[in-house]
Every structure is written in C-alpha cells, then in structure tokens.
C-alpha cells in the first residue's frame, strides 16, 4: 500500500465537501440544502476511502447519504408549506456574530494544528494487514462486544422512541 496520498484527489474531495457544506448553509430552499448534503457526505466517503477506511466509506454512503438524508427530505416534505422557497433563511442579525465566532474558532484550531509538534507525521504509518472489514468485525464481536450490544439496544430504543413520539402516545 502506498503511503503517499494523492494530493489532487484530496484537494478535490475537500473542496467539494466544503463547498457543498457551505451550500447547505446558504441555500434558500431547504430541499436543496438536503440534496447538497448528499454531495457533502459522498465526498466525505471519498476521503474515508483515501485513508484506508473503505468499509466506513461504504457505511457513510449507505447510512448518511442514503438513509439519513432521505429521512430528512421526507420529514421536510411532510411539514412543508405552500412553497419551499425561502424556507432556509438565515437570521440576519446573527450572521456577523456567528461568522466571527466560527471564523475565530477555525483559525485558532488551524493555528494549533499547523504549529503542533506532536502530531504524527506520514512517515511512521504502519500498513494495516488484511482488509478492514474483517479487522472491524474482529473488534466488534470481540473486544467491543458489549458496546456493540448496547448500540443495538440503543437503536431499538431510538426506533421505538421515534415511533411513539411521532405517533403520539396519548392519542386514542
């Protein structure tokens, strides 16, 4: 496995991801935002694939780009108004403050990351043996068995909770 990543591919995916993220924020139509989310998640999946997380890339596409976005779109449709125009308007009075805050946070984080001396370099990457699916499966059904079971219960609870909430428990 080649330790060097393809910079062109990386920058392309990163650009698509960030631009589509911005588009999510700036689209005036909520449905468009949701669709841009698919693009964003797909590019994230691409990034995963670049750094030896092929299985996660697949999961990302299935769960996020597929299921979650569809869910969101569905819900948007159910609660829709007469027109979807201007459903995703930003609150003007907060824009300045929010952008200053977000920008400041970004620059601070970036400053730390760029100047950090303890971050690992690309030189000491240990190539993983075998494919990630079986590796993940070993962990999931071995060391993280209990967490796995709990996650399953969580999903069940979430499902029941969602059903009860959406249906309304007190309605005859």
């Amino acid at each position, binding site marked *: 496995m080649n330790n*060097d*990543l393809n*910079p062109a591919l*990386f920058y392309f995916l*990163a650009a698509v*991801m*960030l631009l589509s*993220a*911005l588009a*999510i*924020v700036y689209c005036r139509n*909520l449905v468009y*935002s949701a669709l841009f*989310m698919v693009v*964003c*998640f797909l590019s*994230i999946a691409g990034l*995963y694939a670049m*750094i*030896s*997380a092929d299985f*996660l890339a697949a*999961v*990302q596409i299935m*769960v*996020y780009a597929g*299921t*979650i976005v569809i*869910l*969101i779109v569905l819900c948007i449709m159910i*609660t829709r108004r007469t027109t979807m125009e201007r*459903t995703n308007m*930003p*609150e003007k009075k907060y*824009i300045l*403050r*929010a952008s200053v*805050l*977000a920008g400041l*946070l*970004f620059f601070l984080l*970036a400053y730390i*990351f760029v100047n950090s001396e303890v*971050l*690992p370099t*690309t030189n000491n990457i*240990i190539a993983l043996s075998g494919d990630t699916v079986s590796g*993940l499966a070993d*962990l*999931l059904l071995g060391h993280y068995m209990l*967490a796995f079971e709990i*996650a399953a219960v969580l*999903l069940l*609870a*979430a499902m029941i*909770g969602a*059903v009860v*909430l*959406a249906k*309304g428990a007190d309605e005859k």
Partner: protein
Amino acid sequence: MTIGITHFLIISAALFCIGLYGILIKRNLFSILMCIELMLNAVNINLVAFNHFLPTPNLSGQLMVLFSITVAAAEVAVGLALIFRVYRDFQTVNIDKLNSMKG
C-alpha cells in the same frame, strides 16, 4: 508537500466551523439538525484520520466512527420524530417561536 494529518484536521475543523455557523444563524429546526450532522461528520473525519496516521496496530478509531454513525442514526431518528411532534403541536419548526422554557 504530502498530504498529512494536518490537512485532514484542517478540513475537518473547517467543516465543523461551517456546521457551527449554520447552527448559530439558522432558525429552521431541519437546517439545525443538518448542521449538527455536519459537525458530527467533522469529528468522524478526525477519528478516521488519526486511525490512519497514528502508528496504531488496529482499527479502534474506525470502530469508534462506526459507533458514532450508529448513535448519529439514532439521534436523527429521534430528532426528526421530535421535530415532527413539535410541528404538529406548535404548527411551526421555527426555533424562535418555541421558547416556553424562557426563564
């Protein structure tokens, strides 16, 4: 310059801040939920990147992402149900109008 962990960290930070920015300026519950998903994904990228770039012998980082996605899925399901419920009770998904908890 080769693509290292710093690059991944910076784009994830950017994604995170976009999500944060979105949360702060939006008033529609759906957009807020979507922005939260963006932030979650930013975190996931970090995990996967560290798993790749750190000299670790196993896939724990990726596994954490798997769990994170699971939890995110659950969260989205419940969150959407909540929004749906709120919409039915208050006939709005605008968060400014849902302020009965105001102190």
